[in-house]
């Protein structure tokens, strides 16, 4: 058996696991505390936001910060529902499209033979290190040239091609046995059918991870609203939330915490759902 009775992915608790808990739990507290704090902060009524000494936990939770947030939005020309709608459209489009094109490209790079294969994969690997903020200016110029400035496409198109997604999906597809594809071909399945019926179902964990990546890159993106759009009516929720967090007052702090929470919760929920599916599929897929 494995060393000291410990093993990877154990089925049962064993006292040898205790040392891991001894440092993992304090680290988890450090990592999680600011998030617990922001949740509490968002629900603090005015007097608790002002309170001295500062309190970590909320004692009389209220929705006053959320009310203030929505009232401020109602006071401006664009209702908050518009920002929510924009974010929703843009996010769904980016996640679906980037999964679609990355899995297609990943399939070609992983399982097909063609001349430029290695070159394309190498270029994509180099692009993994692409830091978008470093080339913001030429990106703006390109988007202007393409003619999508100040449209929904300005939010969507620049974010769809994610080298990280493709890399991850391609690496994962490499583990799918070629014999499965050959068997499908013998039965007369074409490339697209194999992609749809064999490759996609077998790469679910990578797709889930890719979806998380794409979601995060678009949901909290402020840049596309800031730089590539000028009409307030097509800007996104994260942009609006970001303008609020600049307010330095205590009331502003409460509102900003509420805003931060609204941005954070979908992220968290999506991850909880996806993470369990990633872990489950990994544990039971049995392909290596």
């Amino acid at each position, binding site marked *: 058996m494995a060393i000291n009775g410990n*093993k990877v992915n154990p089925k049962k608790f064993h006292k040898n696991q205790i040392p891991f808990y001894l440092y993992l739990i304090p680290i988890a507290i450090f990592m999680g505390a600011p998030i617990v*704090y922001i949740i509490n902060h968002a629900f603090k009524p005015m007097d608790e936001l002002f309170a001295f*000494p500062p309190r970590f936990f909320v004692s009389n939770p209220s929705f006053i910060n959320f009310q203030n947030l929505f009232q401020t939005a109602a006071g401006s020309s664009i209702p908050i529902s518009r920002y929510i709608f924009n974010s929703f459209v843009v996010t769904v489009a980016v996640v679906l499209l980037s999964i679609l094109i990355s899995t297609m490209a990943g399939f070609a790079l992983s399982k097909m033979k063609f001349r430029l294969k290695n070159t394309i994969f190498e270029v994509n690997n180099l692009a993994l290190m692409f830091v978008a903020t470093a080339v913001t200016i030429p990106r703006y110029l390109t988007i202007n040239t393409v003619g999508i400035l100040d449209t929904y496409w300005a939010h969507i198109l620049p974010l769809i091609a994610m080298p990280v997604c493709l890399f991850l999906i391609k690496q994962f597809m490499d583990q799918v046995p070629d014999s499965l594809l050959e068997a499908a071909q013998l039965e007369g399945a074409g490339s697209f059918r194999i992609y749809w019926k064999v490759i996609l179902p077998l790469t679910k964990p990578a797709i889930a991870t890719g979806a998380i990546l794409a979601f995060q890159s678009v949901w909290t993106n402020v840049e596309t609203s800031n730089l590539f759009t000028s009409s307030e009516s097509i800007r996104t929720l994260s942009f609006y939330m970001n303008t609020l967090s600049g307010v330095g007052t205590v009331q502003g702090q409460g509102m900003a915490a509420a805003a931060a929470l609204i941005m954070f919760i979908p992220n968290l929920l999506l991850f909880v759902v996806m993470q369990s599916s990633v872990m489950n599929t990994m544990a039971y897929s049995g392909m290596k």
Partner: protein
Amino acid sequence: MRTKRSTPYLFLMPYLILFSVFIIVPTVMAVALSFTNYNAVETPEVVGLTNYINLLTQDTIFLQYVLPNTVLFALIVGPVGYMLAFFLAWSLSQLTKLPRTILALIIYSPSMTMGVAMTVMWRVVFLGNQSGIANYALTQLGIITEPIVWMLNTNYIMPIVIIVALWGSMGVGFLAMLAGLLNISPELYEAASIDGVRNRFQEVFYITIPSMKPQMLFGAVMAVVNAFQAGNIGVMLTGSNPTPQYAAQLMVNHIEDYGFTRYEMGYAAAVSVALLGIIYTFSFVARKLFTEKD
């Protein structure tokens, strides 16, 4: 798999088009612009290597603050963040499923809050007056008597930025490594212990790491990118670009300072190209490390 000659290109086309337009073309343009003087209004004027020469000889802020800050920041947040991510993922893989999932979720969650949420939280923690959490805690513990104005004190800005960056760095690389660890077949470990692997250390180096190389490399790449992308933390926390006395000024901030505040786009492009150069050097080292271990 055998296909028609055109099939792979059909599958690749949508990705390649978008990839070229929004990643390759802007990068090439950045290189081209870096040899010009461009103020975003007039036509760019070709100036040769002037921008690069100025960057390396005239720009004292760059040489004195920005470059050393960037290297320090990247070295700590990159390699240290990476090793931490592997260590945490490995530790988590030794636990049963439920606690592992919960702890992994908590450790991963900060990387979801980068941006808006992060700014709010850490600003309140490091508030400059006595009602800031950090000041209050330190006062209660008797370590300080006067509140520290964290975000204006040049001694503290950089360490705080580094801590916040590390806090948020357990992202997808960490998850990929955890998944990789759990995917290693248990028979490998059993075979290794029969073959005489004695301790955890040997096990990690001879079995675990070689068995999860794809995830290790991916984690390394993510660590490099993360280290350079986290460059906005200083500006977000202090609320100003440049950061107070350039204490946490990184290359990403320097680019924005020149590009969007001063509209010296040609010069900003030269800084971008230098930044991309540094990033590729880092990732080159990372890739060398992982191909040797094969």
